[in-house]
């Protein structure tokens, strides 16, 4: 096993009477592909939100690159190399696909976005186009976000999250809102891009076929706790998981 890139220890989070995270501890080795499963409201998004800084855990440690990032702001965590996509794609609706990509490119450029350099400069557009091509959405580059299909939105969301130095990519339900016949092609594209960049992947998924096919290890959430942490075959045949998560024998 590679050395750990992310070490989460005893995370707790409550929202009023709801316990969204309880004793969450996970160690993710570098380059691994993890999936998070669990029924609605089990705490998957809360876990992603805590690791990426949107929610501050009540207690616990999130060690990344020899420091505890628990409670840091999203943009600081992004700068450190943990990037994310969203359950509902977060895009700039009044901008074109290309411009969305240019925003991501500008933020991660050196030494940061310029007051003078044109946003639409030739090199940036070339880089944006290359990324869009890698995700097979270059043909949509001049379209505005509201005109896009669910699948294209998801891909753009992930493509934007890939800008800059990504060490860990957290994908919150990459195939939700995507047509059934597009799910596998989209996952193929995304996982190829992430693997070839050597990125550690943690994705939330409801579709067990996708979980089995793409992840090396599965974390099953129930009621804010992790009830199983193992290889997909083991987790999906676990009776507790079958009872609380998948709802049927695998």
């Amino acid at each position, binding site marked *: 096993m590679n050395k750990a890139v992310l070490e989460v220890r005893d995370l707790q989070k409550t929202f009023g009477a709801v316990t969204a995270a309880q004793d969450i501890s996970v160690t993710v080795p570098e380059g691994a592909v993890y999936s998070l499963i669990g029924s609605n409201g089990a705490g998957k998004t809360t876990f992603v939100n805590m690791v990426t800084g949107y929610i501050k855990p009540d207690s616990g440690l999130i060690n990344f690159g020899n420091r505890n990032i628990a409670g840091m702001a999203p943009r600081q965590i992004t700068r450190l190399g943990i990037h994310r996509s969203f359950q509902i794609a977060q895009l*700039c609706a*009044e901008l074109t696909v290309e411009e969305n990509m240019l925003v991501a490119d500008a933020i991660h450029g050196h030494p940061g*976005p310029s007051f003078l350099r044109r946003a639409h400069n030739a090199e940036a557009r070339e880089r944006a186009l290359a990324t869009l091509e890698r995700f097979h959405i270059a043909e949509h580059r001049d379209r505005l976000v509201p005109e896009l299909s669910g699948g294209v939105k998801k891909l753009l969301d992930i493509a934007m999250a890939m800008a800059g130095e990504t060490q860990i990519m957290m994908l919150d339900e990459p195939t939700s809102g995507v047509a059934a016949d597009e799910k596998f092609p989209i996952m193929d594209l995304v996982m190829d891009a992430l693997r070839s960049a050597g990125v550690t992947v943690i994705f939330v998924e409801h579709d067990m076929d996708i979980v089995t096919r793409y992840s090396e290890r599965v974390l099953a959430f129930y009621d804010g706790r992790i009830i199983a942490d193992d290889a997909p075959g083991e987790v999906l045949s676990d009776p507790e998981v079958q009872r609380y998560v998948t709802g049927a024998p695998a």
Partner: protein
Amino acid sequence: MRFNLLLAAVIAFVVLAAGSVILPDWAMFLFAMALAKGLVCLGIVGMMRGGVVSFGQGLYYCLGAYTATLVANNLGVSDIFLLTLLSSAVCLLVGMAFGPLLSSYRGIFFAMLSLALSMVLYGSLSKMSFIGGTDGLNIAAPTFLGWAPEGRPLQMALYIYVVAIVVIAGVLMRIYFDSERGLLTLATRDNELRVEYLGASVRNVMTYNYVFGAVLGGIGGTIAALALGHVDPEFAFWTTSGEFVFVAILAGSLSVPSVFVAAIILELVRSFSNLYFPNTWQLALGIFLLAVIVVLPKGLGSLVSRRKGSPA
């Protein structure tokens, strides 16, 4: 690379500067005031691109005007360049003080807070009798690098000065709007969550736009004070700020020149309807704005901008 922009700037300067020869005195004064106020409005447009509208740009308009006046009267500085520089420096500092505070507010809260700040200045100046109270102060005619024109040449010099500043500020803001930072502002208006998760600071984006607005407001106020020869607390009154917002909405955020066109339209409408319908001109103005919002929701700029889909 920026050839078109440079060409447009040269043409704008030549056309506007020609006014110094063609225009009668009253019109030249009106245009100078309109262009000075247009600078303030350009600052609001910069903020509007980020999704917020300041209802208190009178703060910087007034601050710039009073700074120039107080410096001129008490320190004996009359050079227009130096006065502009000093008052924009003061507005820069004040903008940098309030910017970080205001940058975490949006919508009506941002508008009201900026309005409140301007009304604090209005109230304080009105009470300070040692600097004229509600009567305000007079400021002597400026000099231009040692040259002290009078009469028509003074008006011409002042007019050409404001034209030059407008063209330079217009070019700089166009460059900024088209830049990576400018695109980041549009992205921020659209989706702050996304911008933060890409690793950029939304507050920082908002602060810069606010500070640029402050400096532009201060320059506009300085020039207006010099053109009028007088400043009073009305510069910071909410109706003054309201007019700036009016112009910014009329112009929209698509085109920089349209801001100055809108400012000139407002001044023309104001002076003519003041003449012919002295008590109802605000009504005329209101109907005009309503018509623009209905017909051209993205402002006058959408008549000339190539970007129809989204604001540039």
